[in-house]
């Protein structure tokens, strides 16, 4: 297992957002984490990176416990997150956003120029925009920049939080094509999405989260076949 979450609990004050969730992602897989709004999906991803308060349970990456490490160390070990709402640095240029993605260590910094070219090849839409402030990009371009910025640190595993949120349908298709391309390049992906259909189309396995608990787990074929997904979404599983 590349990434393993065991009995994870996340609380924000009195709110118990994640209740004893266990899940695992294997090297090279795309795993979809589905569920309605407020089910705790983002909290799980944030807790993996040390950005949400973990009140119980553990996270291991490459066999080593990472739950007590600061965010920046986790990223240096090869696990990263493209957060919900993209969160590009709006007052930095596209180039600066990309550069900062490779600032984690000396080796990455030496390779920055090459990796920037690689990213611009992967995201041609960004090429003409490199000197533009990131805040002036369209939503789709910002999402591409956010993913490219994450990839600048050459992660083994990428956690993607709602990459299609608020984007036009044709841009959503582009983003999902890109996720499939990343898998071909060997990046392991844990994908949080509202778009169930597209997610199941590219994922190997999936988990359904409801009220902070895993309601359903299985391969995408299993999830699609039983009709249990719809029932779980409606809260009657």
């Amino acid at each position: 297992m590349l990434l393993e979450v065991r009995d994870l609990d996340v609380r924000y004050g009195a709110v118990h957002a994640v209740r004893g969730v266990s899940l695992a992602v294997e090297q090279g897989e795309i795993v979809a984490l589905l569920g309605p709004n407020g089910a705790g999906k983002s909290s799980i991803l944030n807790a993996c990176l040390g950005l949400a308060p973990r009140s119980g349970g553990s996270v291991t990456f490459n066999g080593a416990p990472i739950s007590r490490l600061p965010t920046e160390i986790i990223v240096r070990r090869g696990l990263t997150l493209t957060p919900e709402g993209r969160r590009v640095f709006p007052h930095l240029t596209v180039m600066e956003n990309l550069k900062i993605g490779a600032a984690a260590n000396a080796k990455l910094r030496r390779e920055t120029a090459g990796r920037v070219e690689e990213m611009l090849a992967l995201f041609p839409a960004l090429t003409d925009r490199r000197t533009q402030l990131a805040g002036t990009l369209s939503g789709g371009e910002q999402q591409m920049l956010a993913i490219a910025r994450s990839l600048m640190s050459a992660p083994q595993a990428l956690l993607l939080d709602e990459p299609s949120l608020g984007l036009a349908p044709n841009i959503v298709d582009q983003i999902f094509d890109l996720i499939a391309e990343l898998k071909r390049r060997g990046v392991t992906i844990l994908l949080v999405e509202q778009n169930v259909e597209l997610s199941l189309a590219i994922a190997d396995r999936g988990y359904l989260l409801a009220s902070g608990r895993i309601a359903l787990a299985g391969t995408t074929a299993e999830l699609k076949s039983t009709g249990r997904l719809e029932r779980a979404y409606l809260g009657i599983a």
Partner: protein
Amino acid sequence: MDLFLQQVVNALSLGGTYALLALGLAVVFSVLGLINFAHGELMTLTGYAIFFALAAGLPYPVALVLGVLVATASAVVMERVAFRPLRNSNATVMLLSSFAVAAMLHVLFQNLISARPKAIPAPQFLMRNVEVLGLQIGAVQLVSIAVTAISLLGLTLFLRRSTLGIATRAAASDFNITRLMGINANLVISTAFAISGLLAGIAALLWLFQRGSVDPLMGFLPVLKAFIAAVLGGLGSLSGAVVGGLLLGFIEVGLRAYLPDGMQAYREAIGLTIVIAVLFFYPSGLVPRREAVR
């Protein structure tokens, strides 16, 4: 006309010093959300470092460099001791901690050194007037303006060109996401404090050239002014700090030069009224801080 131009030079020189101090406050505020009220003590530390360096017989230029280095290092140490342990508490707690640091340093200066001013004579060449384009201008003012301009240029280059500078700007807009880039949060915060200390040290030199002595409260007034300047420009905005500092310099020098004698007693009150009037029309300051788009 000559008088007017001379006042412009004075305003630029005073405003530039405020700008450097306000920038120091703004850099820390933008990254950490903290108003460091012990910022003025960094100036005072520079003063005492120069005083003791000169007393120990070090050459004048060495003493000045040493003074600036002491402010820079002290700012980094201050963060490590007084703010880092409180990082996860709210901003008010850190604010109180900065008051405590300021109060403790005051008392230490008073008890260990002296409550009375210690003289630091400015070098001879700064006491003269220089003729520029037919105007008699104080060398101190010219040096102040030049030093301020060079400092601003250097800071701009650092923030735009270096990875650490870009990281500092990134952290100012979204701290957690900056950590997601694998960037050491402590390093960025230490950098912000080092910049603020460096700027406070440089401002202290300019201040010392003007007044020629150091006492325990030396940093209090200029940093109070710098705080006003930072608010005037837009708290946390770096360009705002510079604009606010310069504007405050122009307001103060303008009132000192042109207010009738009978009203000079009300100079500060009138100056602050102008500041309030500006804030009435620009409540977030003249160049408001740009928040991250969420």
